């Protein structure tokens, strides 16, 4: 076979494949409107259900067909992508700071975005719990058990993962509370020397904790897989919903949830990305999408997927029973807001960098 005839054959097959694409194209796309929801790692299952419900609701209300595209990953990474130009109509991320960063660095929506929807724009909240192997063989009860010799702790990287930042802060809050007893003393900063000492001890505690971490994944789902699938570690610091999901998906006979004495009130917020909804002419449907999260359907689905609904009266009482009582500390109470937290702990050269680099 000469090279020329081979080239002809290749040419013909390229044309054939090209034609195939032409025929399949109109089948795949062609709906009335579509919006892109850029979200964080563990919300996959929730939004899968919620999107289905919303599509039905919107069709009934307006007669319009809406397609919802989803993108998931570590919250920091996802925010970065939106800043770099990923045209999200709505962002639903793990913490307010990541959304702040989008407002600040890319100016895609106003910086007061968090006041545009009820409850600080967080339609559901969550907290951090421990997932341990069935029967809790290492007897892990609270944060101080994590720094015992021979314990391996799995958490994602706070630099890229929102959940990991909540994990880190929960541990820090625990250490402060243990020293100070009453966290309201942080507000008026008295007595100063005791506060300083408590901070120093908290730092030591976190240093010891991260020495026990053998793998830092970039997102919460990666860490869950490390613990659950690859069987590494004795305890996974996880979103409450992620821990429940792991138990559900992979068998209640394998893992137990341990609720620590202190945890965080995690508020994963949502917002409209004004610049892109105006460009895509999707403001109306995107706004309705976010508001629908606060509806009876949205709240019920959130509880079903182990997010704590902000309007619990809408949720199924059976679902609500599954949430254990836990002392949840808000970020403003102990840390004075995300801006401070980020600067002090997670920016380059911050406390996390110092302890993690020195620990290795």
């Amino acid at each position, binding site marked *: 076979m*000469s*090279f*020329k005839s*081979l080239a002809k054959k290749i040419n013909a097959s*390229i044309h054939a*494949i*090209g034609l195939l*694409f032409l025929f*399949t194209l109109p089948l*795949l796309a062609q709906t009335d409107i579509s919006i*892109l929801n850029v979200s964080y*790692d563990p919300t*996959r*299952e929730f939004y899968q259900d919620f999107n289905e419900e919303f599509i039905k609701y919107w069709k009934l209300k307006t007669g319009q067909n809406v397609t919802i*595209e*989803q*993108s*998931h*990953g570590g919250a920091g990474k996802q925010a970065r*992508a939106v*800043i*770099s*130009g*990923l*045209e999200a109509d709505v962002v639903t991320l793990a913490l307010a700071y990541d959304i702040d960063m989008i407002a600040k*660095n*890319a100016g895609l929506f106003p910086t007061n975005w968090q006041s545009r929807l009820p409850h600080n724009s967080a339609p559901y909240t969550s907290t951090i719990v421990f997932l341990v192997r069935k029967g809790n063989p290492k007897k892990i009860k609270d944060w101080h058990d994590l720094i015992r010799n021979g314990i391996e702790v799995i958490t994602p990287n706070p630099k890229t993962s929102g959940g990991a930042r909540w994990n880190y802060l929960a541990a820090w809050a625990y250490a402060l509370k243990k020293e100070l007893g009453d966290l309201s003393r942080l507000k008026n900063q008295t007595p100063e020397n005791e506060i300083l000492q408590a901070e120093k001890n908290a730092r030591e505690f976190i240093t010891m904790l991260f020495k026990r971490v053998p793998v830092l994944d970039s997102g919460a*789902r*990666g860490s869950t*897989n490390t613990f659950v699938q690859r069987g590494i570690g004795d305890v996974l610091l996880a979103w409450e919903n992620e821990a429940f999901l792991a138990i559900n*998906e*992979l068998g209640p006979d394998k893992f137990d949830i341990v609720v620590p004495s202190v945890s965080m009130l995690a508020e994963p917020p949502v917002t409209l990305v004004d610049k892109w909804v105006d*460009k895509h002419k999707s403001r109306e449907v995107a706004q309705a999408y976010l508001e629908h999260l606060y509806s009876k359907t949205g709240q019920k689905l959130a509880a079903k997927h182990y997010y704590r609904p902000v309007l619990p009266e809408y949720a199924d009482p059976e679902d609500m029973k599954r949430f254990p009582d836990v002392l949840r500390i808000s970020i403003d109470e102990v840390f004075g807001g995300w801006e401070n937290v980020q600067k002090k702990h997670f920016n380059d050269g911050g406390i996390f960098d110092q302890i993690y680099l020195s620990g290795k």
Partner: protein
Amino acid sequence: MTDNELIKLPVDYLPVHVQASVRETGLVKWLLIIISTLFLGFFLFIPLITVFAEAFRKGIAEYFNAFSDPAAIAAIRLTLITALIAIPANLIFGLAASWSIARFNFPGKNILITLIDLPFAISPVISGFIFVLFFGLQGWLGPWLAENDIKIIFAIPGIVLATIFVTFPFVARELIPLMQEQGNEEEQAAMLLGASGWKTFWKVTLPNVKWALLYGVILCNARAMGEFGAVSVVSGHIRGKTNTIPLHVEILYNEYNFVAAFAVASLLAFLALLTLAVKSIIEWKYKHP
């Protein structure tokens, strides 16, 4: 006289201590063969079996079910589109680069040869970031692109660009040594006999390098379809839209959908096996023209 006797005879006539070391070479030979077989078995064969075993764990119906998911079909489609653009682009680039390097002398030739290897030397993730820095909203070209409503990254063009970048050495790397070795006497002869430049290219140059060219294209294709790192950075991970096959596999795995993840992964594994087979055929043809 058989080959065996040829080797055996001289050993017997050698001094005793040399005989021992020659026999030892036999031992070393087998040891090396065993080590490399074990190594290949452990690092290649077992994982390959695992992929197919996991994919078929819940039966053939479940296996094919993974391919009826619109997101999987979209991922396969995107991967094919990407490869179909990246390969011709690199074919043209590879021919042009190797032609110029093998046939002409010009200042900076060595720099060009080194630059062709650049994608091999830098991590694919970094190459992805280069495109984000360049085309991102905060990047050099970003604001202009946004103004003119041109989407590069987080859309198909970005994925294609990243793929072209990581695969462009394959064709050129195959052709340059061959064309350098062949020299240009045949082309000069063709020209002297009155062939046009174009005719010389089709009748002389191309037939001389066809097998190396095909070989480069096949390697290029395998990498284009399997690339993860660079594409992951510029993709945006929109389900059913900007996920290639490898990215779709990761998503399925992260969603605890292991059968589907391995089923789609088996497609890539199958592609790899096919590549190997075609590669062997071409290698054989190459040596027995």
